[in-house]
């Protein structure tokens, strides 16, 4: 099968869906050159640097029967647009009693690892999870990003896709044939029986490597939720009930992270709690702004070694 990059796969999803739906529009501060070539500059607009207004315009387009895609690039650039995303896009369907649909896709890159420093490396998905009304994607492979974005482009709701910056150029096999990936279905990346590792975003790859490293000694199940809202609670809980051990890996800062949510979810579920054999562990970004200099940056974000430590720790802990 052909291999394409994560970024190419995302682009293909948009191309395919834009071909089907002439009432779809794309906005970004950078030229989306190949989209513009195919669909023309009426539908593919370069915009001024005014992110809050782009998202606002997307809402107005959507409320007028169009589908709007906004590429905000880095998540922190989107911080100037949080009002339109959180006060409006998230609430407008509900506030108006469901009388209109708001099919909007907003894309942003997340994550550290390239010395982007504090203003260019954030992973803020949990704050969006706290605002009901948005669907939230965190695709981790070229295959997934294409399938999830294609689903997003058929969804009648605001969807935010958080795409790890560091994965943009990674390549895997992606079929030419059309496919969709449903929201709320986690990918069990590796089956195991001793410990459940739920790994988000780029950490899904690190977790798989860690799992491979203890192959034969510890049987690790690696779950990549793929979408955070809706979250595939069932797959996570089922796995934890089986293994009795939970490690959640997330590049974002730990406090009030998606990882904390997953731990809370598992532990406050009575049958799951009853089967827990060890305290759950979080391997998260440290609670500091991302520092610029490589040794410090490396220190604050999780990696394979830290994941391994947590897996081994979970195994060592005596059952309660």
């Amino acid at each position, binding site marked *: 099968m052909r291999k394409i990059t994560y970024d190419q796969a995302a682009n293909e999803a948009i191309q395919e869906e834009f071909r089907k739906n002439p009432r779809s*529009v794309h906005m970004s501060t950078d030229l989306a050159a190949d989209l513009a070539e195919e669909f023309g500059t009426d*539908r593919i607009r370069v915009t001024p640097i*005014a992110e809050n*207004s782009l998202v606002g315009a997307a*809402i107005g387009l959507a409320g007028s029967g169009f589908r709007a895609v906004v590429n905000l690039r880095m998540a922190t650039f989107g911080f100037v647009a949080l009002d339109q995303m959180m006060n409006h896009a998230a609430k407008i369907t509900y*506030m108006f*009693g469901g009388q209109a649909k708001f099919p909007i896709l907003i894309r942003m890159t997340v994550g550290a690892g390239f010395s982007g420093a504090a203003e260019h490396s954030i992973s803020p998905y949990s704050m969006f999870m706290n605002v009901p009304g948005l669907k939230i994607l965190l695709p981790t492979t070229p295959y997934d990003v294409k399938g999830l974005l294609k689903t997003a482009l058929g969804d009648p709701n605001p969807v935010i896709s958080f795409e790890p910056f560091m994965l943009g150029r990674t390549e895997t096999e992606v079929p030419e044939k059309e496919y969709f990936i449903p929201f709320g279905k986690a990918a069990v990346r590796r089956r195991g029986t001793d410990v459940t590792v739920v790994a988000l975003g780029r950490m899904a790859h690190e977790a798989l490597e860690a799992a491979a490293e203890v192959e034969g000694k510890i049987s690790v199940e690696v779950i990549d939720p793929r979408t955070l809202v809706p979250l595939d609670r069932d797959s996570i809980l089922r796995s934890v009930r089986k293994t009795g051990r939970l490690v959640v890996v997330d590049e974002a800062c730990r406090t009030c992270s998606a990882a904390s949510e997953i731990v809370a979810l598992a532990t406050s579920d009575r049958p799951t709690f009853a089967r827990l054999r060890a305290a759950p562990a979080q391997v998260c970004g440290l609670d500091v702004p991302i520092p610029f200099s490589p040794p410090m940056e490396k220190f604050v974000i999780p990696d394979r070694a830290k994941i391994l430590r947590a897996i081994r720790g979970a195994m060592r802990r005596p059952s309660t």
Partner: protein
Amino acid sequence: MQSDDKVLIELYTTMLTIRRFEERLVREVFAGNIPGFVHSYIGQEAIAAGVCRHLTKRDRIVSHHRGHGHCIAKGADLKRMMAEIYGKKTGYCKGKGGSMHIADFSVGMLGADGIVGAGLPISTGAAFAAQLEGRGDVAAVFFGDGACNEGEFHEALNLAGIWKLPLLFVCENNQYGVNTPAAYAMAAGEISRIPKAHNIPCRVVFGNDVEEVHRVAGSAVAGIRKGGGPFFLECRTYRWHKHFLSQGLEDLRPAAELEEWKRKCPVASFEKKLRGRGVLSPAKIRTIDDRILRRVEEAHAFALRSPYPQPQDALQDIYST
């Protein structure tokens, strides 16, 4: 009756409908019968009426926190509005929105909004949609003088300008944002300096004169429909009530200023004109008013007898399906 007269009577009727609807609300709010925050449109009726008379149902408007007038002028149903304001299941938003979030997409009313300035970018999207549809439809956005100090004002003007969006900006300059005078809060002095700087054509009108609003908005909308790009209409006006209807809230505006503006009542002054010109007789006015009062009473009765939503209804409409 000349066709011009018909338009004038419609304008009058729209204004009086807004006035009576709002008067009823004022009473109910101060009697403690309505939950939440209600921002009264009394004093500004000529603007919604004069602008919306030029809009079809396909034209889309975006409103702000003081949005009842825009709903009524755009053709929303008084019953469902009143029911929404009372938080009833039969309201436009099934009781989920309340006074500040009434919308009627079926008549092109894309919603009131409680965040100052936020409707401006949203309206650029509605105008963008009209541009892509290419049927000569327009969008209009209503906002206050206070909203002009939010960055979104600048961004929306710029976006409309560079893309030549079919968008009518309607600034309802009632000279205050809560208790802060526009004269204090705005370096430009004249709001219209800003859209002009963005190369957007601009007219300032006396917003209490519905004929003037109607005339200028008419040529503006016609120009926009022909592809002339955005237009900015600043309407000078004044609100008669406190920022929102509440015993607690202080009104720091000079009492004499309010009295002066009450003498410039958009409804009474237009009524006087129409009577002077023989367009409306006192009897005819009585008939119109009675009909409006009856509709408002019906709306009110409808709201009162409508059921509240079930608590569990709160779990519906988070997402569209």
